[in-house]
């Protein structure tokens, strides 16, 4: 079984925000919520880098550990999804998520927060695959349609890669080999404490 992964190649990302727009359009994400965003470091300065960020579908997801109503689950492909029927909008998952993935609508209950919304890796939710209910709550289930996440498909420079982790790794490895040493995943050293 494939283990689904996202990887953003900061050497290629041109901060066009097509991934953000494509996601919003594909899933008809409500006003005020972006499931994906582009973060730019050192904006306008030497060493500027952009990277597209959404839920990283962690293997050992902290959001799952802190949810008071156990609304999260992980599919056999490693995609972290949640049930909007169970979510009470408490915001605990936002405290725990290093990537800021959980999003909340501006209007709703519980201190003006409604159901949490986040990237689904275009894999819908617990409802029946490709049903109207699933689309209304979680957006399109492209994985069930045999497609990959729309953000990666839409990326004009193919900076954003999504799919089977082994495939993604192979594509990225080829790029690093052809570009040369030092062009690996940006932030990898910081994230995995290999430097500084």
């Amino acid at each position, binding site marked *: 079984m494939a283990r689904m992964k996202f990887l953003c190649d900061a050497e290629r990302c041109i901060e066009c925000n097509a991934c953000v727009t494509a996601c919003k359009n594909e899933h008809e994400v409500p006003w005020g919520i972006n499931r994906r965003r582009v973060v730019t470091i050192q904006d306008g300065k030497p060493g500027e880098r952009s990277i597209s960020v959404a839920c990283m579908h962690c293997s050992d997801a902290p959001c799952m550990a802190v949810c008071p*109503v156990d609304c999260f689950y992980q599919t056999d492909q490693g995609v972290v999804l949640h049930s909007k029927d169970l979510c009470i909008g408490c915001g605990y998952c936002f405290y725990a998520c290093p990537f800021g993935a959980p999003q909340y609508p501006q209007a709703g209950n519980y201190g003006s927060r409604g159901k949490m919304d986040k990237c689904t890796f275009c894999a819908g939710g617990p409802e029946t695959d490709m049903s109207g209910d699933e689309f209304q709550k979680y957006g399109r289930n492209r994985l069930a349609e045999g497609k990959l996440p729309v953000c990666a498909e839409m990326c004009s420079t193919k900076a954003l890669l999504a799919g089977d982790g082994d495939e993604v790794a192979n594509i990225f490895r080829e790029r690093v080999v052809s570009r040369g040493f030092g062009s690996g995943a940006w932030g990898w050293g910081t994230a995995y404490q290999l430097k500084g």
Partner: protein
Amino acid sequence: MVRIYKSKIIMIFGFDFKKGIRNVIIFLMPLFLINTNVSAIEKLIAHGGPVKGLAVSKNKKYMASASFDYSVVLWGLNPIEEKMTLIGHDAAVNTVKFSHSNNTLASGGDDNKILLWQLKYPIKKNISIEPIILGEHRGKVVDLDFSKDGKYLLTASWDGSIGVWDIIKRKNIQFIKGHKGPVYSVKYSEDNSQIYSSGYDGEIRLWNAKNGNFIRPLVKNGWGISVFEVNEEKNFIAYGSTDGIIKVVKLNEDKEILKIGNNRTPVLSMYYLKEKNLISFGNAKGRMIILDTNSWSLVRDFNAVNGPIWDNILFPEDTSLIVAGLDDFLTRWEIFDFPPEILDRPGPARRFNPLEEVSNGEKQFARKCSVCHTLNSDGKKRAGPTLYKVFGRKAGTLKGYKYSEALLKSKIIWSEKTINQLFHEGPDKVTPGTKMPIQKMKRYDDRKDLITFLKEATK
């Protein structure tokens, strides 16, 4: 006692010569005593929902806990007993703090409000206190800090701002903006002239307390900084980050003193027992790490609860600690009298994963209702009112529960029909303005099973 147990811990110090900064890597070697029957020494039951914040009075005689059940509970510490419940917030309470004189308690919550509670000593049991509403943020309030003179209060909010409040005039002085995203933690400097703050943007920032001007970033971590403590005299900042790192750096220079953690589990809480030189960290998976701030050595590392440790407190005598998490109770643990490293996620199964086979109706209740409602006659202290004898009850009429305006004005009488309607159409349609989150049950069978279960269980 500290020394005895430290002698059982083997530490290896590594040096990163490349950067010239000493990194201290601590490996806790397996200890030799194995006792699988260890449990928390005490469960402190008062709340009806996850406990998010803890605070100890400066005289170490009282403790306060803030909970998802909309309440703050005030505890006596010697002996530990519930003194009173403070009801005033309209949503989950996230944080609570005592003033330095111990006369005022401040609390902040998901209703974006900051409430002040005036305390009179000695604290008598079950006396009600009316809160003073100090003000509001535009997002949830998650941390507070009093100035040493008790005149000002700082608030950290998810609206991205730090609130500075004049407690005596009871008004806002300013909202300091600059963090990119929610502010997680905030503190006054020792002389109250400066403000430290940390946030989702991964920075600890230093601000001028008088005019709110940004002075400089003290730490640029990259990942969000959930919690931090500063000791100006000893010249360090210790912080816990959302990528699971615990780090200690010099306050006045970019020099790392200590770095622990690579398990990627967010650090969510910390407590600094200054007088005993101990600092404790709790993470999202119930792990507690206690450090000695003199030698920066590991004192204890163990799993204390299932799920996150939202807050923790080391007791002044430094032999026990209290942790707050998803459970409806606080747990007190001995720090030294057992080898807790071997504990494997202690505590009961969460209520949402029943161990035994249950009916569909009970399962629906457990997963969708039980975090906010009980079925007992005395189950008042929850985010929602008890469902005991709910059938035939007029909405908004249970004594002792603080209803929303919408429910107080409602004419609904709870019956099979109206409960079915509530979960079919949703609380936002049936009782607009209610505090209840939008819970719908799409399947008729689920609604029917829930009602059948409730009819029996709420008798």
